[in-house]
């Protein structure tokens, strides 16, 4: 029999295993093609999308996908080859020359991989247009301008090259299996009894302590130290995660079985006994899934936070739809005329405030050097009136004479400004006594803005009359969808330092959405891939257990009890990686929140909730499939007997 026929027959007999393997390759190739098609699209590589960093973002994302695909294919091939060792041994035992057997395995792995890659690229070609449209829509490119051509040959070429390399490595690994082991090892593979993994409470405790140390280092990072600590924390977390998966899980299983009263009850000896053995075989899978899950959860959490942060900033720093400086006193009339001409977005609020630009000398604390810079002053009564008119929430500031309050932008820290002494012509020296969040009229702050008591403000105006200007705010209905009106107002107010949602915020939101889109897409793909690894591995193990469960049924175990045993195992194989990646992600996101002075609570809660929900759904699917694989025939018999 030729090697090719050997491979063909073997593949047809193992269609279940190979369909799973090919599907895994197909999924990875599909995702890679999608990213490559965006990265290499001619429209993406020009104009606004290049400015937003879209090609770079997708290039980085495709590298992540390629790395993940490589790791995933390596795991997948290794797992299937483990199941094939005995078969290879049998062929060799019956006299097939080693090169023929090795080439058979190589051909089989390569054929299934290529079939999967071809399917993945084909699906990619079909769906890439949809994917590109979604990406274009996010960055605001008109659909009419969007993706050029049906098949992106460059993306096909890149995907084929990347997967040929990955599959080549996996197939060579399969080829070498025959040479790596002695015949007796190959032949005896299926008879190898499962062995209880060594558990070490000391190493388990050391891993937990190491992880706690890593968390502590991360959570005490500051903006200054976070860069240098990143690699240390990553290394510690990686080692500690492997240690926990390797030592803590078996130690926990051992501790549970040590308590005989707990262990020897109903389904527990079956489930915990199995887990105690299989956790050892699942260590690398748990570890890889925990780390991949962490990366994707952090990516999604960060993407969500960036978007929330922008929205929070918008609410705080853009209380009005349009903000502009008065130059000749006709700006309000011209802007109002543009609004009325548009007719779709009536004015719902209007306010103005005087801003005084002055040179200030600031001393942060005793003995510190003085610095000079231009600041903008606003009187407290005009600030309050403007915030009230806009309807935005704010803490009512009450600076007394001789005091100043800082209008904080997102990155300002009150702690660094408190107590600073500010000298401004016309005032007898001010002390920073507090802060408020929220701009009076709006626009990204170019300079520090200080609120003064009305009396101090008027004195400063008298001393610096040249620095005074009036800034106006107009709030219109449905300003998030006022693209045309924004253009009309911009045309009506040339040179008036116009700020608007469309001009200042929309580009930010677009890049935020793009980042979030990539994060969520990679997260979903990783989730689907890791979920499928757990699913297939667990269902195959459950299928291997079918004889064991039939025997247990013979000696009187009820189906309900056996179901619990199967479900409990599925629960643990999902819970362990989920718990690890949730824990890592919460720490990583909390650290980012602390470092970047941003409230990550909501993105953390949303990401964790989404992952828990997704894992719960995967658990239900897997446990159902595992119950069918392990107990399917018992059910049929029970019905017949009943």
């Amino acid at each position, binding site marked *: 029999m030729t090697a090719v026929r050997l491979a063909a027959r073997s593949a047809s007999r193992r269609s279940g295993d190979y369909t799973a393997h090919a599907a895994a390759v197909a999924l990875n190739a599909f995702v890679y093609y999608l990213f490559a098609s965006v990265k290499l699209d001619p429209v993406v590589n020009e104009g606004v999308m290049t400015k937003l960093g879209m090609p770079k973002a997708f290039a980085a994302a495709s590298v992540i996908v390629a790395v993940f695909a490589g790791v995933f294919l390596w795991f997948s091939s290794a797992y299937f080859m483990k199941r094939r060792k005995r078969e290879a041994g049998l062929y060799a035992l019956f006299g097939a020359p080693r090169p023929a057997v090795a080439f058979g395995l190589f051909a089989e792995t390569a054929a299934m991989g290529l079939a999967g890659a071809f399917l993945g690229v084909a699906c990619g070609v079909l769906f890439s247009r949809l994917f590109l449209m979604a990406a274009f829509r996010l960055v605001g490119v008109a659909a009419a301008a969007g993706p050029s051509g049906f098949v992106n040959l460059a993306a096909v070429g890149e995907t084929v090259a990347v997967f040929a390399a990955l599959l080549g490595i996996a197939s060579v690994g399969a080829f070498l299996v025959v040479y790596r082991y002695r015949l007796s090892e190959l032949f005896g593979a299926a008879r190898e*009894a*499962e*062995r*209880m993994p060594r558990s070490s409470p000391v190493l388990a405790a050391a891993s937990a302590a190491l992880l706690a140390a890593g968390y502590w280092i991360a959570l005490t990072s500051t903006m200054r130290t976070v860069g240098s600590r990143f690699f240390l924390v990553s290394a510690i977390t990686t080692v500690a995660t492997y240690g926990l998966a390797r030592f803590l899980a078996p130690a926990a299983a051992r501790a549970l*079985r040590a308590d*005989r*009263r707990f*262990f*020897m*009850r*109903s389904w*527990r*000896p*079956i489930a915990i*006994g*199995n887990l*105690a*053995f299989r956790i050892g075989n699942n260590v690398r899978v748990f570890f890889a899934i925990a780390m991949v899950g962490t990366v994707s959860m952090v990516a999604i959490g960060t993407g969500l936070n960036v978007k929330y942060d922008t929205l929070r900033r918008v609410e705080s720093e853009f209380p009005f739809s349009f903000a502009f400086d008065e130059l000749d006193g006709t700006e309000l009339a011209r802007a109002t005329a543009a609004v009325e001409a548009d007719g779709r977005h009536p004015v719902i609020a209007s306010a103005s405030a005087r801003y005084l630009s002055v040179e200030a000398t600031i001393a942060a604390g005793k003995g510190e050097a003085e610095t000079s810079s231009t600041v903008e002053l606003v009187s407290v009564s005009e600030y309050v009136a403007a915030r009230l008119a806009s309807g935005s929430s704010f803490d009512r500031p009450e600076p007394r004479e001789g005091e100043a309050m800082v209008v904080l932008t997102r990155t300002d820290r009150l702690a660094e400004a408190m107590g600073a002494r500010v000298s401004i012509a016309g005032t007898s020296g001010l002390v920073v006594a507090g802060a408020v969040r929220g701009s009076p009229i709006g626009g990204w702050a170019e300079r520090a803005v200080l609120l003064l008591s009305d009396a101090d403000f008027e004195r400063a105006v008298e001393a610096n009359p040249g620095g005074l200007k009036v800034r106006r705010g107009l709030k219109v209905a449905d300003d998030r969808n006022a693209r045309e009106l924004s253009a009309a107002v911009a045309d009506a107010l040339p040179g008036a330092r116009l700020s608007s949602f469309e001009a200042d915020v929309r580009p930010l939101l677009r890049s935020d959405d793009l980042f979030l889109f990539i994060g969520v897409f990679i997260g979903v793909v990783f989730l689907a891939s890791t979920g499928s690894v757990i699913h297939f591995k667990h269902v195959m193990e459950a299928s291997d257990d079918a004889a*064991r469960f039939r*025997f*247990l*049924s*013979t*000696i*009187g*175990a*009820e*189906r309900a*009890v056996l179901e619990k045993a199967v479900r409990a195992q599925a629960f643990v194989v999902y819970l362990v990686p989920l718990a690890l990646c949730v824990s890592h992600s919460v720490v990583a996101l909390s650290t980012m929140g602390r470092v970047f002075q941003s409230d990550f609570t909501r993105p953390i809660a949303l990401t964790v909730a989404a992952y828990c929900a997704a894992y719960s759904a995967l658990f239900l699917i897997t446990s159902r499939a595992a119950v069918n694989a392990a107990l399917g025939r018992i059910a049929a*018999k*029970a*019905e*017949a*007997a*009943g």
Partner: protein
Amino acid sequence: MSSALVRARGLSKVYGARGVKYEALRGLDLDVERGEFVGVMGPSGAGKTTLLNIIATIDRPSAGEILVAGTDLFSCPERELARFRRERLGFVFQDFNLLDTLTAYENVALPLALAGLPGDELDAKARAAAARLSISEIADKFPWELSGGQRQRVSAARAIAPGPALLLADEPTGNLDSRAAAGLLSSFSSLNVDEGTTILMVTHDALAASYCTRVVFILDGSVYAEVRSGGDRRAFFDSLMEALKAMEGGVR
């Protein structure tokens, strides 16, 4: 009503549907009295294991009636059957069927755990069964650390731990060397004599069957002959060999 623990009347079992049919049992009658140690012998395909599976309630007869302790088990719902198997039957198999993931003690205690016995009672019964089969010394070892004979004794201890009314053994010495087989059969014998445990054992081996008090020969799905022991095992073995030769002649 008979006092027999197992009473089978007109049992038949047909495998296959339409086309090729195979009749494993053909109107078989059998009684097993309480406290008996009955062996079932016969050539391959005679229907020995089918009979055992039907008595064990893991297979259903195509026709006929079977009562165990006066109860028609096949009229019970599956849950009741599971409870019956758990509490009233013990099983010993040729290939041991020990769970590799559990120690010897845990394997012995497994049916008790599945029955939901409280901790103290479970422990007492498991320990008693382990002591009965002389495996207390190896209670904390895993199956792969044990010899074939030790594994089969663990399997037997698991079978007797719940205190079953009937112990069913399917070729229990099939995978054992002669010394381990003798040790196991002596244990069965003393269980039967000392504890009054009723045992039904399927075997190919006349030497193993010589430990029984009665041996039933099955040929082509029905009882061909039966031989009772007079108490002398060697003489009983000789009678069994003669019966086997006669049956082989019958086959020819």
